[in-house]
């Protein structure tokens, strides 16, 4: 599968990654190569093979409905670039 420049630009935008126009061609080539590589898997007949979701035979681990975490606001906020009155503060985002 080969990706065109417009698709690469769109993917970059969706991922909020800034890609200059002059890099789009190069990236389109690289991404297409990766896709072509992965597409080889399509040659294997998996008609009757259930999807493998784990390498170990295990089921989804569950927790009890108990409050065991939280209550450390300062630690949570410590990585925020800006905070005030116990909130994270970000540039105004309103629709």
């Amino acid at each position, binding site marked *: 599968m080969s990706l065109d420049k417009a698709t690469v630009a769109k993917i970059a935008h*969706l991922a909020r990654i800034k890609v200059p126009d002059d890099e789009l061609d190069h990236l389109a080539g690289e991404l297409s190569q990766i896709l072509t590589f992965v597409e080889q898997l399509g040659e294997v007949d998996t008609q009757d093979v259930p999807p493998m979701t784990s390498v170990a035979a295990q*089921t989804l*681990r*569950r927790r009890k409905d108990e409050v065991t975490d*939280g209550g450390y606001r300062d630690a*949570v906020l410590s*990585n925020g670039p800006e905070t005030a009155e116990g*909130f994270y503060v970000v*540039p105004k985002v309103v629709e």
Partner: protein
Amino acid sequence: MSYIQGETGDWEIVIGLEVHAQVISNAKLFSGAATAFGAEPNSQVSFVDAAFPGMLPVINERCIEQAVRTGLGLKAQINLHSVFDRKNYFYADLPQGYQISQYLQPIVGKGEIVLDLPDGSSRTVGVTRLHLEQDAGKSLHDQHPAKTYIDLNRSGVALMEIVSEPDMRTAEEAGAYVRKLRSILRYLGTCDGNMEEGSMRCDVNVSVRKPGAPFGTRCEIKNVNSIRFVMQAIEYEARRQIEIIEEGGKIDQETRLWDTTKFVTRSMRSKEEAHDYRYFPDPDLLPLELDAAWVEDIKRTLPELPDDKKARFIAEYKLSPYDANVLVSEKARADFFEAVAKGRDPKLAANWVTGELFGYLNKAGKEIEESPVSAENLGGLIDLIADNTISGRIAKEVFEAMFETGEKPADIVEKKGLRQVTDTGAIEASIDSVLAANADKVAEFRSGKDKLFGFFVGQVMKATQGKANPALVNEILMTKLKG
């Protein structure tokens, strides 16, 4: 069918609803942080909810159970195998950069909700699916002129997204759908249905078409937070779309907002690519496998739900569908009614509960749980009417005092001296004095003016301060007037 009249003829509205219902649980869907409403900002946030690097989600078993319970309550298919996916988008209150949700394989499949319409009729609306997902944090835009404040307490709280089929055709039906769904969730104890606190939120899909034509292009009105707004937004949006089409324009599929101050919907996100969520299975979570026997165990613990209760009230107590609807809409109301009706005339009990009691509660802005009149005391009042201690009219006076003071009806009757006069001698004496004082009217009555009977009854009741037994008054009065 009710259509909207346009310039070019009739139009039909097509409505589908997506309801986000916050699951009742102590801890969040994938972390051990608390879910309580109204806590200090960011005080109920774990490193998982704030998406710190390396943190892994572990699912809360209670949330799974609540989703299954809700699915069973909606008579829906329970999928023993379901998958959690990542829904990718960027927003300041979504620290992970994706929401863990369910996409192609939700935990609950097709079900149904029976709408109880105001005219007493019913209509079944399809439920497409129910899936579990994380709530996002909360953005506060009004704290600072140039900044948005973010509180992640809600981030990671479990939501059930319940999606309907596009089966509704009027704003009233949409209102009835939300009301009924809320009622079922409350009966099940899986969501408190509190729309003011945001524990139930609605996305409304609206399109219009000529009757019989294929579906039109829809607009989605996001995050409507009351039943009244849902109905208003639908009315407005349908008219907006009809106007555009009739003027030769076309509807753009888009997300809109209901403006609660201007009463209009307006466009929210112009960029269509914002809807490109690039779902994929969350590699941090294995598929969710349920045990059929476990699902059966939950099924056995379901309470009697509103539809069954309504059917039973109609069959067992001979109530009208309307009264039954009013009573079963909340479990507490239904329980109250049954306590009052036990061993008494159910129709009378229903009249007192839906009439006087609900009227007074409404006026006082109180819920049934806060009623100053207990079911036992209201029952006691009905007993006093039944054994002729007081008349129905006096009972209303006693009820008013009960509502104010919370006292027992018998105590109020004694204290206020409201006991009905059944002593025929006393009633005869009152009648005699009324007849003597109105000799002219007695003559008129005897010459054929039958209508005056009501006047005499009124006078006697007045003379006895309403305490005379009305049946006795009628009987003795008639004998004396005829004599």
